[in-house]
């Protein structure tokens, strides 16, 4: 109970902190215009408006993913720069519980871009917001965000261990859009990407949200798989995080030298 409160309050705080950066907000509001445009032109050829909404939602999911990838991948480094990493780690809590609210917050702030994509799509390209299963949509979007936040913990903890985290960050953005089927249906991708996509929570998150928009399939199984995979990431991330914390204390990397 108190753990849930801690996560809730922590997430809220980090969302607030992230949302008050003008750069982040400007990016979250204007990059989606580009993404909505991309989506529209990729799908305009010979398709009905429903495909456009699907594409816009897919673009929104890409934005959430980008936010998690960059926000969570750099979460620990960010806290270090702010000087808050030491204060967080001093709390008598498992380190994963201190970092998870941050990664969850990066997923939550990713929805700004998703909302902006839908708004831009509606305003500029007249994409109507007629979702096939509004209830499933209303559940699957927050659940997908929770899932990506959990996945974020694994990213946050493993990326600090990599010497070239930034480079890896940059190279992961587009491939995961692709193999998760956010941009184009998985069916058009080469077969070998299938297994990779199947183990990524992003794939199932995108699929659940898409199914709720198009009514093309039952939403709940996809959502279930998404949350199960995410939970595995959360547990793995928590284990790596404990290792990272101990290593940082041994190597004196909690503070800026």
């Amino acid at each position: 109970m108190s753990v849930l409160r801690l996560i809730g309050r922590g997430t809220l705080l980090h969302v607030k902190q992230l949302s008050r950066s003008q750069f982040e907000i400007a990016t979250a509001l204007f990059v989606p215009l580009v993404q909505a445009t991309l989506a529209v032109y990729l799908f305009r050829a010979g398709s009905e408006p429903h495909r456009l909404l699907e594409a816009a939602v897919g673009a929104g999911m890409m934005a959430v993913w980008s936010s998690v990838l960059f926000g969570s991948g750099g979460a620990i480094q960010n806290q270090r720069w702010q000087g808050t990493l030491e204060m967080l780690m001093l709390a008598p809590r498992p380190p994963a519980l201190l970092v998870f609210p941050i990664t969850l917050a990066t997923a939550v702030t990713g929805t700004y871009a998703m909302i902006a994509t839908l708004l831009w799509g509606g305003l500029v390209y007249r994409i109507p917001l007629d979702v096939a299963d509004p209830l499933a949509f209303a559940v699957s979007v927050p659940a997908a965000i929770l899932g990506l936040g959990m996945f974020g913990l694994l990213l946050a903890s493993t990326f600090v261990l990599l010497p070239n985290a930034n480079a890896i960050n940059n190279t992961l953005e587009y491939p995961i859009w692709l193999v998760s089927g956010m941009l184009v249906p998985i069916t058009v991708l080469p077969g070998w990407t299938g297994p990779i996509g199947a183990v990524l929570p992003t794939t199932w998150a995108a699929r659940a949200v898409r199914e709720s928009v198009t009514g093309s399939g039952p939403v709940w199984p996809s959502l279930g798989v998404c949350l199960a995979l995410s939970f595995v990431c959360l547990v793995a991330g928590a284990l790596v995080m404990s290792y990272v914390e101990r290593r940082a204390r041994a190597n004196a990397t909690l503070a800026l030298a």
Partner: protein
Amino acid sequence: MALAIEARDLRRTYRTRTGWLNPRRVEIDAVRGVDLDVRRGELFGLLGPNGAGKTTTIKMLNTLLIPSSGSARVCGFDVVSQTREVRRRIGYVFGGDRGLYDRLSALDNLRYFAELYGVPAARQKRRIGELLELVGLTGRERERVEGYSRGMRQRLHIARGLLHEPEVLFLDEPSIGVDPVAARELRNTVAGLAATGTTVLLTTHYMAEAEELCDRIAVIAGGEIQALGTADELKHHAEGRRVLEVQAFGVSDSQLAGIDVLPGVRESSVDIVGTAQVLTVQSDATVDVQADVLRLLDGVRLGRVTARQPTLEDAYVAIVGRSPVEVAA
């Protein structure tokens, strides 16, 4: 009597790389065998020059750094293997204006850390109110921290460190950037905490602060404890010395070097106070160096010249001055 902090032969080596084209591994022995026993409720001071190893020692005790060797217990719990237990019982305040969520209000910061440090929900509101009052931020708590002055941030740090009513409080230069009135209030607060049973380990560069507050003081230099005792006991290290203070304007380095080698001179240093330089010359009590010093300063405009008994600061200078280890900058 129960010990709040006990450290045995604590050592810490940092390994870093320097150089960019031709990286070289360097090892810095920041702390080289520190033994400490701090009683419960004691207010213990750690003094020492920059780079002496004070912060490193504190961070080993508060679990942020794992010692390279040696062991330490805080409230009876091992700082390496029982970190959770240690962390529950300690507070840590460091000097400087980083370490807060800048785009959030003081209230948001305190609420979050109250939650993190496990302050029961029912008590949080009152506790935060009390602390804001204590550090004089009441009325400003809803403003964003980025708009705070340095001293206000420092006071917020202090409030945060006290949220969970720690048994042991580590204060690493807590009065840095705090105005004199607020610094005095801070000293009263710290003294009050110690009076009600909180153990405090304090580092500071202000001798008066250390002398006023600390039950005992350890002087650390080159990663080793050079002297340990009450302020009065430490003053014995300057025993047999007298101190000459000369206010001057425009003393050259060569003149200073000349003073250093005068017969009977043990230690000399210069402070800049306003537009003036204040030369402090410690000499053997049996030798009156005043005439020689003034002769060397011939031609320099001089202000007040005073001879006085050694203070804690003089003792500190004497202790640090005779420590064999040169601390690299």
